[in-house]
């Protein structure tokens, strides 16, 4: 049995790694901190909810066609849990939708603006606008999805002859119960999140360091004009980086509702931690983003837990942790953990 606090830390750091990795990669290409990053990942959360809704509806319909009575119907609905295919489906769709939005944000907003000579501050404000736009879209979608669920439930009720309630909410939802595994004795997410994070990290480093495309992407990040004179389509490389980064965000977001309460505005909760992780990692290093993600997760969960149980600090103050981490990093190690001279540091510690 893994203690819950360790489970928590594992899942949270896996999600943070995927998110801060993408934020760092987009920052390295366009040099703009993308404030819409977290909300785009919440789009992935709604993908998972949609997959759940559709699965529940088709399950209910099948049950009613085979003449289930009210009791066995609700037993069946309550016992529904995600199958491997569901996980594959919502992670893949989350990735796809996230990357589509990322490409649209780069191509339709950031690139045209920077071609017209917008500076970093203006671009940054544009990403806030994208965030607000997506937030409203998610709110609209949450309403529409609820309408859909209600109308389907009514339709099913008339077939069933009793009141059908699918037990789905489109705000303040958490899908914990659909992810529980009896054999594990806990959530499957505890396995899935770290395995996904690790696999994607390996895949990403393979692409970046072992393929021609990856080398061209790194070259385009370091010196775009030189890369372009060598025949690299830098714009295509940046588009790819945005697709990849927000794909990862969408994928991470598809896992979020399995453990955390989700709302259209949940991104605003995560955005602090993601930025803290990326800044702690130095904003210019993917390895740094990974280390930053793990560190922030450890500060926010076990360290904060210790503080709150021993010093009685209210859990409401948890958001202070990423803010503090950002402030301290910018004050004392502005280039993040990736910018530290580790050799020198170690030799100083040994002495």
């Amino acid at each position, binding site marked *: 049995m893994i203690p819950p606090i360790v489970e928590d830390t594992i899942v949270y750091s896996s999600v943070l790694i995927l998110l801060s990795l993408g934020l760092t990669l987009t920052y390295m290409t366009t040099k703009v901190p993308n404030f819409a990053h977290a909300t785009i990942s919440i789009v992935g959360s709604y993908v998972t909810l949609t997959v759940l809704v559709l699965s529940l509806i088709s399950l209910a319909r099948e049950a009613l066609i085979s003449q289930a009575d009210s009791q066995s119907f609700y037993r069946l609905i309550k016992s529904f849990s995600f199958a491997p295919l569901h996980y594959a489906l919502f992670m893949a769709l989350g990735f796809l939708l996230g990357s589509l939005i990322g490409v649209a944000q780069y191509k339709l907003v950031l690139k045209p603006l920077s071609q017209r000579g917008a500076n970093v501050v203006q671009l940054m404000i544009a990403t806030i606008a994208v965030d607000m736009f997506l937030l409203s879209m998610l709110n609209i979608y949450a309403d529409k999805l609820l309408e859909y669920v209600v109308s389907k439930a009514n339709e099913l009720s008339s077939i069933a002859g009793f009141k059908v309630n699918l037990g789905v909410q489109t705000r303040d939802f958490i899908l914990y119960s659909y992810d529980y595994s009896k054999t594990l004795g806990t959530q499957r997410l505890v396995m899935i999140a770290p395995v996904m994070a690790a696999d994607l990290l390996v895949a990403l480093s393979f692409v970046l360091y072992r393929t*021609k495309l990856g080398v061209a992407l790194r070259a385009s990040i370091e*010196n775009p004009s030189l890369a372009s004179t060598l025949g690299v389509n830098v714009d295509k490389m940046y588009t790819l980086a945005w697709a990849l980064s927000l794909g990862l965000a969408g994928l991470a977001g598809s896992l979020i509702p399995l453990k955390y309460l989700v709302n259209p505005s949940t991104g605003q909760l995560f955005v602090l931690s993601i930025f803290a992780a990326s800044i702690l990692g130095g904003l210019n290093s993917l390895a740094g983003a990974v280390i930053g993600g793990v560190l922030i997760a450890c500060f926010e969960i076990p360290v904060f837990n210790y503080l709150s149980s021993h010093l009685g600090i209210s859990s409401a103050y948890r958001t202070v942790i990423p803010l503090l981490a950002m402030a301290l990093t910018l004050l004392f190690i502005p280039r993040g953990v990736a910018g530290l001279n580790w050799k020198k540091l170690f030799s100083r510690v040994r002495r």
Partner: protein
Amino acid sequence: MLKVENLNAGYGKLQVLHEVSLFFPERKISVVIGPNGSGKSTLLKTIFGLTKIYSGKIIFENNDITFLPPHKIASMGIAYLPQTNNVFENLTVEENLRMAGYNLSKEELEARLASSLEFFPQLKLYMKRKARQLSGGERQMLAIAMSLIRKPRLMMFDEPTAALAPKIAHQVLRSIVKLRDELGITIILVEQNARAALEIADKASLLVSGRVIFDGLPKDLLENPELGRMYLGVTSSQV
């Protein structure tokens, strides 16, 4: 080969080139000289689509390339060795060389890699090293090796000998002559070291404050008492 007509270009609102018209003949070495800040680098960058063009035309082998993006220009057979930031510091020497052959097929890249390394055998020792760990001279060698990898029809060099020891600088100029004679490549060479460059040149242009003030044979530039004294550091007794 390459023709520049009435070119006005610069950076944002800062115009650097004024009505520049020049012709670079095929299989010849054309040298562009001029004092610091006269717009020589800007001219090369403009040909490669890296600056803002206000008006004018750039024609390469009868194709109008004036507003093409750099990667398209690269694929048409033009190579360019920038004056600064001409290697990727965070990439290894090998990755740098492979990037230089980005448009080549795999077999071609391997072959060109081998032959350009023969030119600078020292680089073979550093293949896995990051370019930022190289010395200034080694870096310039890498940059030149990179520009040699592609077999372009036109090559533009921006002060390739600036950071090099005289012996190596001479070697580099010899290799540029070899590119013309053995591979038939058309060359545009921007040089501060004007005398040595003019010795190997077929054609010379003098750029001052973004304007062409001489365009003709190197011999005529060297013998022009006024221009020679002002821009080549040649005293009249030498002429």
